């Protein structure tokens, strides 16, 4: 083999820039991480690199491995020469007609090969570089096949070995920024469970994308859903696709709102959806992944991706996904889906456009009016503290202790809603600061204005741990003319 200025080679170097080798004198050490004899050779020649370099010989390790692997092996073996990485299909190795690794090739100033040693052979290498190498045994050791000799199938398998599916998802942009489960055809098929992949659920703004069951299944897989969660995801997607939900507006608004999914009925137990301790937070796969699947349908399929068409000023952690069950068994009241007209034994998803939850502590109230006032006044600050009435739906997650107190004091759900509505009112004159509504602007000074236009704008669900008097309120996504939508879970596996 001769390589000259015109037919030398250039390969990526661990030092950063590509290095072009066009003439000698050089000692080329062809090696690979997978070959133990290569590591032995590098380790044993490492102490000589300085001296050889000083004598005017360029000592180069050409790895048939990716750069990061080459760098790691060079570091571990203490090899201080030039380190290059040769990609498949290993054309440089082919040009040198390599059969196995390690192979040391010495080339002279004119680029002519003047000698080569195949495998570890201490005596032959001493002779090649005109310098004694170690006499520590083993003095001879055969190596491994060079990768340029592999057939196409073996190379493909090798490529696959270095392939990282999770990184591939990031490169494709099929993520919300967290690692996802790659939506392989097998996983998506399992998630579909025999349902028609081409069934069209609707078009989603802002991308005006056709939302098919298969795309929803892909998002469910990406989010980490088990196949039995899929019907709940489908119901949530059907809900947000209702025109009166205005998902397109919600997806792109500067308001940092997300979509909150509340689930009622038998499916909660069937899939292990949590409505008890920590219901709004992490810890339960069904909660975390169903909400996330819906958000992926909105942000990937629907095109409402943060920073692109989603212009949410701050975002909120709930935009990763927020799904929880109502704890119907602990609640003293009728469940949300029953209030919304569904039979108690049906599984129903209700979707709200909502801001991040605001936690409300009340460990002191000794009567229902006082507790209602605490909850209501906290909600008074949502959207903006002097923006009354809100003009949207507030979702309260009432903790079991608060709910039980109301029940013990004889208040049913309707009473709590109407008293909440009535308890949060102020004279218009007290609301004329900051961001205020046209209604307040036009009202007489002493006209009482409520935070809500009607008790119908207050939705109560019971969720949370048995201990602790912390409820929460989600402010609405405003300016959307949007309402909460309920959909029955279409099937249960």
């Amino acid at each position: 083999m001769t390589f000259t200025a015109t037919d030398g080679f250039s390969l990526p170097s661990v030092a950063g820039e590509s290095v072009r080798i066009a003439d000698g004198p050089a000692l080329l050490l062809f090696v690979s991480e997978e070959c133990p004899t290569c590591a032995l050779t590098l380790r044993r020649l490492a102490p000589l690199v300085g001296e050889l370099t000083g004598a005017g010989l360029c000592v180069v390790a050409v790895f048939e491995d990716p750069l990061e692997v080459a760098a790691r092996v060079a570091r571990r073996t203490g090899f201080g020469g030039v380190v290059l990485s040769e990609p498949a299909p290993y054309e440089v190795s082919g040009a040198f007609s390599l059969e196995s690794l390690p192979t040391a090739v010495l080339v002279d100033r004119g680029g002519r090969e003047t000698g080569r040693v195949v495998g570890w052979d201490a005596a032959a290498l001493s002779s090649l570089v005109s310098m004694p190498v170690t006499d520590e045994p083993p003095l001879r050791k055969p190596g491994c096949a060079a990768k340029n000799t592999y057939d196409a199938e073996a190379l493909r398998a090798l490529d696959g070995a270095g392939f990282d599916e999770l990184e591939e998802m990031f490169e494709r942009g099929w993520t919300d920024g967290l690692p996802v489960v790659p939506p392989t055809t097998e996983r998506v098929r399992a998630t579909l469970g025999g349902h028609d992949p081409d069934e069209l659920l609707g078009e989603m703004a802002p991308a005006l994308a056709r939302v098919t069951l298969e795309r929803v299944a892909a998002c469910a897989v990406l989010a980490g859903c088990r196949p039995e969660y899929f019907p709940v995801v489908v119901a949530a997607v059907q809900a947000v696709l209702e025109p009166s939900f205005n998902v397109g507006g919600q997806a792109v608004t500067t308001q940092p709102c997300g979509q909150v999914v509340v689930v009622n009925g038998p499916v909660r137990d069937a899939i292990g959806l949590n409505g008890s301790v920590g219901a709004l937070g992490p810890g339960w796969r069904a909660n975390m992944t169903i909400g996330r699947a819906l958000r992926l349908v909105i942000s990937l399929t629907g095109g409402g991706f943060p920073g692109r068409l989603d212009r949410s000023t701050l975002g909120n952690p709930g935009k990763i996904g927020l799904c929880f069950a109502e704890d119907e068994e602990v609640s003293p009241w009728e469940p949300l889906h029953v209030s919304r007209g569904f039979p108690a034994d049906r599984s129903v998803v209700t979707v709200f456009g909502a801001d991040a939850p605001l936690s409300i502590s009340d460990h002191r109230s000794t009567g229902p009016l006082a507790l209602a006032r605490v909850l209501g006044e906290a909600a008074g600050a949502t959207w903006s503290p002097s923006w009354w009435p809100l003009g949207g739906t507030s979702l309260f997650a009432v903790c079991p202790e608060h709910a039980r107190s109301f029940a013990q004091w004889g208040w049913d759900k309707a009473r709590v809603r109407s008293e909440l509505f009535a308890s949060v009112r102020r004279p218009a004159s007290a609301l004329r600061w900051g961001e205020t509504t046209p209604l307040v602007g036009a009202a007489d000074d002493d006209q009482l204005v409520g935070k809500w236009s009607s008790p119908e704008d207050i939705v109560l669900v019971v969720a949370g741990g048995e201990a602790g008097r912390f409820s929460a309120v989600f402010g609405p996504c405003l300016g959307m003319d949007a309402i909460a939508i309920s959909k029955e879970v279409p099937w249960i596996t």
Partner: protein
Amino acid sequence: MDYVSPFDERRRAAEPLAPRPVSLEGARVALLDINKRRGDEFLDRIEELLRARGASTFRLVKEIFSKPAAPEIVRRIADRGDLAVEGLAD
């Protein structure tokens, strides 16, 4: 590895731009107020400037800023106008 894309991979042909007007003289300009606060103030000023250049104007208002304009509004713009200006505000 075969994956199922979450995206609708259809490619849409770009809509060609309408020819640009050479002059505003005599043009009928639709001013679309998306119904966001102070958008009318912006359009008032645009209207003044357009009229000074010989254009006539007519105003339309979307029902709500966060939803697409109703088909009726789009049809009226197309039927009655040569040009349209939409005002975003806050």
